[in-house]
C-alpha cells in the first residue's frame, strides 16, 4: 500500500473531497456569473450613443481597476466591508462575491476583445442593411465573436480555480483549508500539500487542455 493510504483516514479523504468540491463550486459559479456580467458589460461598452458614455466610462474604469487589485486584497476588502455593514454573509458567499467581482472585470475585457475582433466591414455592412445596434450584435457580431471569446475564458476559469486557494485566508473550507487542517492534525506537511497540489492539478489540467483544444478547433475560421 502507498504511504498516502496509510496516512489519510477516511475522514481525511472526505474532508479533501469536500474541499475539492467547494473549490470547484467557487470557481464554477464565480466564472459563470462573472461571464454573464462581463458579457453584458462588453455589450453595453460596444454601444456608440452619447447618452451611454458615462456608463461606458464607468464599466471601462471598473474593468481597469479590478484587474489591478490583487485577489487577496479584493477578498479582504469584501470580507471586512461585509462585517462593517453587519451583513451576515458566510465566508463562502464572501469568497464567491470576490470571485464574481474580478471574474466580471477579466471576462468583460475578453468579451470586449472578442466583439472588437469582428471586422469593421461586418459592422458597417449590417448598418447598411439597416440593422439596429442590437440586431447587429445578435445576428452578425456575437455568432462570430464567441469563437474568440470561449477559448481564453477556459484559461481564466483555470486562473480562478487557482485564485480560490486564497479564500482559505478568510476561512472558507476549500481545498487549501482542508490541507491546513490535515497539516495541523500532524500529518506530514510535504505529503499533505503534495496531495493538495495534485488535486488542484486534477481539477485544472483537463480544463486548460479543453481550452487549448477549443482554441485550435475554433481559431481556424478567421473573421473578415
Amino acid at each position, binding site marked *: 500500500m502507498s504511504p498516502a493510504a496509510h496516512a489519510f483516514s477516511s475522514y481525511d479523504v472526505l474532508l479533501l473531497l469536500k474541499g475539492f468540491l467547494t473549490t470547484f463550486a467557487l470557481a464554477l459559479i464565480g466564472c459563470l456569473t462573472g461571464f454573464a456580467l462581463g458579457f453584458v458589460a462588453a455589450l453595453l461598452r460596444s454601444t456608440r450613443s452619447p447618452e451611454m458614455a458615462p456608463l461606458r466610462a464607468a464599466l471601462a474604469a471598473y474593468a*481597469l481597476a479590478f484587474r489591478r487589485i490583487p485577489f487577496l486584497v479584493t477578498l*479582504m476588502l469584501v470580507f471586512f*466591508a461585509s462585517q462593517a455593514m453587519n451583513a451576515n454573509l458566510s465566508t463562502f458567499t464572501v469568497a464567491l462575491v470576490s470571485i464574481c467581482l474580478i471574474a466580471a472585470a477579466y471576462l468583460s475585457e475578453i468579451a470586449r476583445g472578442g466583439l472588437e475582433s469582428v471586422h469593421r466591414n461586418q459592422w458597417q455592412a449590417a448598418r447598411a442593411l439597416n440593422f439596429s445596434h442590437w440586431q447587429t450584435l445578435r445576428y452578425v457580431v456575437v455568432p462570430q465573436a464567441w469563437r474568440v471569446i470561449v477559448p481564453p475564458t477556459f484559461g481564466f476559469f483555470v486562473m480562478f480555480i487557482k*485564485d480560490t486557494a486564497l479564500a482559505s485566508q478568510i476561512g472558507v473550507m476549500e481545498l487549501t483549508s482542508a490541507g491546513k487542517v490535515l497539516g495541523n492534525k500532524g500529518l506530514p*506537511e*510535504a505529503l499533505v500539500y503534495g496531495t493538495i497540489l495534485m488535486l488542484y492539478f486534477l481539477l485544472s*489540467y483537463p480544463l486548460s487542455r479543453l481550452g487549448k483544444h477549443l482554441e485550435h478547433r475554433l481559431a481556424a475560421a478567421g473573421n473578415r
Partner: protein
Amino acid sequence: MTLQFGPILEQWPYLLGGAWLSLQIAVLAFACGMLIGLLCASILQYGPSSMRRIVGAYVTFATNTPQLVQIFFLFYGLPEVGVTLSPFTAVLMGATFNAGAYLCEIQRSGFASVKHAELESAAVLGFSRMQIIRHVTFPHVMKVMFPPLSNQFIVMTLGTSMASIFGVEELTGRIDNLGAETYLSVEAFLVAAVLYIAITLLATWLLTLYGRSVCRARMDIL
C-alpha cells in the same frame, strides 16, 4: 458607516516602504523566472526528448496549480526533509518557480515566431551566428515578446500580495498590520486597492513607453 482614512494615510512612509518591498519581490522573481524560462525554452527547442518531457511536465504542473499552495509546500513541507526556508525565501522561490513556467511559455512562442526565411537570408548576407542573434533574432523576439512579458510582470506584482500570508511585510502585510492596529480594516484595504492600482498603472505605462520606443512592440497606451 463613515470611512476614516486619516489614521491610515498618516502612515504613508510605512506603506510606501511596503510597496517598495512588493516591487522588489516582483522584480527579483521576474529576473530569476526569466533565466529559468530561457533555459527551459532552449531545452524545449534544442534539448533531447527526455529533457523536453521533464520541462514540459514542469510547465504544465506549475501553471495548473496555485502559487499559494506551491509556497505552502516549500514553506511547511521542506522542513521535513531538513530544508528550512525563511518566509521571504519561500515566497521568492515559489514566485520564481511559478514565473519560470509562464515565462518559458512566453519565450518559447517568442522564439518560434522568428521566421526561418529571415534567418536564412541573414546567413546568405554573410552574418555570423552572433550577428544573426544580435541583429535578427533578438529585435524580432523582443518585439513579439514584450507585451506578454510586461503583462506577466503586472500579474506577478499583484501576486506578491500573498507574501503577507507568510508574514513578509510587503504592502498587503503592512496594510493588514495597520488595519489591525487602528481597527480600520475596510479603509486600510481600500487604500491598498488604490495603491496597487496606482503602482501597476505606473508600471504598465513605463513598460509601454519602453516597449514602444525601444522594442518597437505594438502596445496601446492604456
